[in-house]
């Protein structure tokens, strides 16, 4: 983690520690003595605090990244939308936190889903705008852009049927089923611009490539977590499943790292150029 600012290192370290705890909890044999430390309540409560912290950090750092770009800069609105998206997810997590901390449980569906759905829609819009802006930068020509776009859209449609069909047919109340379908459906919509963005940035290395690797890996982890969440037939299992919590914390941790690195990329260089001017 050479060259990582403190915030990014901290986000990665706590994320890795929590994911490790969840994996131990998921893989440990029943009755193992150390499971007392990693109780279901501890995973849910610890995960809740961590999710809130990482989402707050992501929202703040992406907002600051937006703020450091002058009005009219092509990427300014993208970073603003990303910040709003993280703020929406944070609000959803915040409304779940009291019951998670006190009882280790969470209601589903709940008002939190309004925030989560709004946050996810904003995430899709932000990714699509980043794609447009990065393409318009024309650093490297992309003659096969439209062909790739159609291919990814077809793949998303083909994947949508087997993923969404069983969720749509699951024995659950209509509202619950609709929300369960909405999350992975939105993620599949997001995966098209996301795949295009990955295609555009896959050859990037250096500081820019590092930022986008973390942000896009976070989106992939988030989509995976949403599919896992929707795939559980019994919502009562949601709060205690450590793999589910690990997937969400992983995505939030990757986002926090990526946004902090972007902030450093803009901020550090500004300081360096001011020093050079002096």
């Amino acid at each position, binding site marked *: 983690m050479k060259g990582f600012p403190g915030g990014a290192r901290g986000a990665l370290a706590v994320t890795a520690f929590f994911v490790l705890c969840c994996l131990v909890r998921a893989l440990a044999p029943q009755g193992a003595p150390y499971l007392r430390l990693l109780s279901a309540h501890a995973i849910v409560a610890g995960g809740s605090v961590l999710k809130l912290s990482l989402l707050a950090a992501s929202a703040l750092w992406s907002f600051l990244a937006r703020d*450091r*770009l002058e009005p009219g800069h092509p990427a300014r609105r993208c970073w603003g939308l990303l910040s709003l998206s993280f703020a929406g997810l944070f609000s959803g997590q915040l409304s779940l936190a009291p019951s998670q901390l006190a009882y280790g449980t969470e209601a589903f569906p709940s008002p939190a889903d309004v925030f989560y759905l709004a946050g996810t829609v904003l995430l899709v819009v932000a990714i699509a705008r980043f794609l447009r802006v990065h393409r318009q930068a024309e650093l490297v020509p992309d003659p096969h852009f439209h062909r790739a776009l159609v291919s990814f859209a077809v793949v998303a449609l083909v994947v949508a049927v087997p993923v969404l069909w069983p969720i749509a047919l699951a024995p659950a109340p209509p509202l619950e089923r609709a929300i369960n379908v909405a999350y992975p459906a939105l993620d599949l919509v997001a995966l098209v611009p996301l795949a295009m963005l990955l295609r555009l940035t896959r050859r990037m290395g250096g500081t820019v490539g590092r930022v986008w690797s973390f942000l896009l890996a976070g989106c992939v982890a988030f989509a995976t977590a949403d599919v896992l969440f929707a795939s559980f037939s019994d919502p009562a299992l949601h709060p205690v499943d450590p793999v589910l919590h690990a997937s969400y914390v992983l995505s939030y941790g990757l986002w926090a790292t990526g946004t902090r690195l972007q902030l450093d990329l803009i901020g550090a260089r500004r300081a360096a150029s001011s020093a050079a001017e002096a």
Partner: protein
Amino acid sequence: MRTDEVTQAITGVLSPHLGESMAYAAVCAQVQKLKVGRTIRPQEVDALLARLAAGLNVFVGPTTSAGAVEGARKAVSALEHQP
């Protein structure tokens, strides 16, 4: 100045930001767009750096972008003064 030398010099400066492969591809793409031949004139260097600055600006912001392009300008200038 030889275009390939200028390309290499600018690539070296942009690599920490974009990675070597992407930096090289970006410089080559802009050289092709400007229809530069085997040698490059100072005005063409300016145009090339302006295009790269605009592209880089989207990813890293204007300050970092301007700093990188200034570094590239110095690298090209050093080529001119080579014996």
